[in-house]
């Protein structure tokens, strides 16, 4: 190859490189979700500021708590943190991730949600045929009630508002389990996981008696969430990759890559506008805008 051809070759390579720049423009050495992030917290820094030793602890799950108590609304992100000394429940502002409070010596680890009067309820995994719960006031974080549910069904990570009007009890087969739920107005949206077919099925209280419900395939990660934006599944592929599906027909709508997060936990706000990501490797908590 003549020396005169070298600049042309370099230029050609550069143009070919830039020509495919639609995808190339999005390449990023920094976590791409930083563009969606509105806030970030180092979870260890929060723990240390509370003089809690982070060693040995890990986040079990987290859930957005959007409720109204005694005419006053609140939006929290509740994080259940497991530690050898017991379960801790941390409350962060659901819009800014500002630290609000934490509770300990509470039944926790099975679910965390909004009780029918707008209080916050937390429950422990069932032991034999009953599971412990406690109800706290959402602004003072004062424990106002505690007890045991007599139940043989395993709860999800979130608690549902008890529907006293229907007062119905559905017998759930052992291979089906409730994986996520939320209320949108007076409608309850929830997601049932079929471990035999490895799918999730979105239900709502308004269509529970309808014959057709889309069956959404689970990815290799096996987790799924439900929010106002649809059903979200996750695949482990060079980090994590989230897929969003339609409630109505189960069609895949879009996806969101988390190439830097190989071990993370997510929670989706009921309003469908926010979601939270906890990066277990970096022990960072992010609040993000939805990608839809």
């Amino acid at each position, binding site marked *: 190859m003549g*020396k005169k051809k*070298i*600049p042309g070759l*370099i*230029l050609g*390579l*550069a143009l070919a*490189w*830039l020509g495919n*720049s639609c995808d*190339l*423009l*999005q*390449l*990023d*050495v*920094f*976590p*791409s979700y*930083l*563009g*969606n*992030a*509105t*806030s*970030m917290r180092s979870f260890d820094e929060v723990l240390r500021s509370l003089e809690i030793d982070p060693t040995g602890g890990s986040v079990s799950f987290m859930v957005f708590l959007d409720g109204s108590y005694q005419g006053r609304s609140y939006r929290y992100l509740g994080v259940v943190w497991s530690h050898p000394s017991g379960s801790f429940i941390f409350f962060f502002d659901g819009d*800014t991730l500002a630290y609000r409070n934490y509770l300990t010596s509470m039944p926790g680890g099975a679910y965390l949600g909004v009780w029918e009067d707008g209080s916050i309820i937390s429950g422990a995994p069932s032991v034999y045929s009953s599971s412990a719960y406690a109800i706290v006031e959402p602004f003072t974080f004062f424990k106002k009630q505690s007890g045991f549910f007599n139940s043989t069904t395993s709860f999800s990570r979130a608690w549902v508002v008890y529907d006293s009007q229907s007062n119905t009890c559905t017998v759930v087969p052992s291979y089906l389990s409730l994986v996520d739920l939320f209320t949108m107005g007076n409608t309850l949206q929830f997601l049932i996981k079929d471990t035999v077919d490895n799918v999730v099925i979105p239900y709502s209280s308004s269509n529970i008696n309808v014959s057709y419900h889309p069956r959404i395939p689970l990815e290799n990660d096996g987790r799924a969430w439900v929010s106002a934006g649809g059903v979200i599944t996750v695949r482990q592929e*060079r*980090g994590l990759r989230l897929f969003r599906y339609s409630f109505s027909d189960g069609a895949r709508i879009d996806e*969101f890559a988390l*190439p*830097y997060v190989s071990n993370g936990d997510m929670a989706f706000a009921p309003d469908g506008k926010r979601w939270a990501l906890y990066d277990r*490797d*970096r022990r960072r908590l992010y609040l*993000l*805008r*939805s*990608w*839809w």
Partner: protein
Amino acid sequence: MWIAQSLKKPLLVGIVWFLLAFDGKPALGAESPEETEKLQYTSWGLLYGWIDAREEQRDGANNEMDEYTAMLLSSLTYALRQEGYEFSFQEQLKESPVAIGSDLPETPRPILYGLERAQETRSRWLVVVRTYRERTRFIWSIGIYDGLSQTLVVSDSSFLFPGLSALPQLDETVGRILANWKKKQEEVVNPVEVVEQRQLFKRTQDGVMVYLGSPSQGIVIGTLQEPSLLAPYIPMGVGKPLSITLEKEGYWSKEVVLPKGITDRPFRLPALQKKTDQAWWAATTLARLMGAELGRRWYVMPDRFFFSLSDALWMNYTFQQGAYPVFHTEIRGEFGMYLQRAVDAPFRITMGMALGGIYTWIPAFADEIGRIDLVMDPLFIGLEYHFPTWAIFIKNRFPFALGTGYLDRAWMEIPGMGPQFWSVGVLIK
């Protein structure tokens, strides 16, 4: 075969004409009238000069030619004329004190001047005589040059004490040097086919001086100002490689060999590379395509080792709903070196190391002003292609983040691609 008597004479003339016209290229100096003229002209040129350093001459009262110098010149010209030669010019060198204020042309390089005059006057031989009168001694040197090959053929130098015995001694000197010159002429010289044309050089840069040989010992052919430069006639053998040197202030000089020697085809001179002691550069990098990097290099040794300081500013954006741009800037210092030996090579390989810091600003983070990731490049490698005053380059880095900001403490890589931090840029010298 019978041929009519009336046709014999025209036929003979025709045969002779045909042989002369179509008998291939004639041997040098034999058949070609032009070349014959070149090699057989016999006229001489004479340059002479004297310095009289005696006490009585220092006030310049007597600026007439030294009598012994006159006798030496007289003896020389007489002897040559006796041999049948003639002089096409006789000029006095200006280096003589008595020549100051005369109408003689400037002769800063007497030999070169004399050879040029020999070419102009079509003189084959040039004799240069210099004399020096000091107290009781008369010193002289004589050199005979071949105007065709522009070489010294013979020379002689000696001195005498003025007196009656001086005249025979001068005649003897003249006889000796001419005898030596004749002897040189009788030596068998293999016939060489000499080029007839002058070489035409095509310009690629202004202000380039072209030397025949090296700048220190060669002859200036000329300076390129016009689109082309016609070299003076150089009596080179046909097909013999010709070595020239190109020189320009602030640029690397370059020796160039015309492999086929002097030909009738123009020779395009290569461009000289600028000596780089400082340079600006700009680049864009994979994973930073929505931005640019601007830097400046300072060369510790021109085109060998350099320090570089740069700033990159870029934005990352996923083009997805809910996403906002994230802004980064990196200040980075590099130390690099070129790996090839030639300082003016067009194609060059660089390598080095660097240290920098990437500041990241996420506008949506209201309570955080940003973070700095310290980054170390134990190695970067680059390929550069240099033009005289600028270059294009590609470069790849192998950075390691120290984990002080948003990045992990690990080797940096683009997800799914690895350490592909290729930059494409331009360097302005």
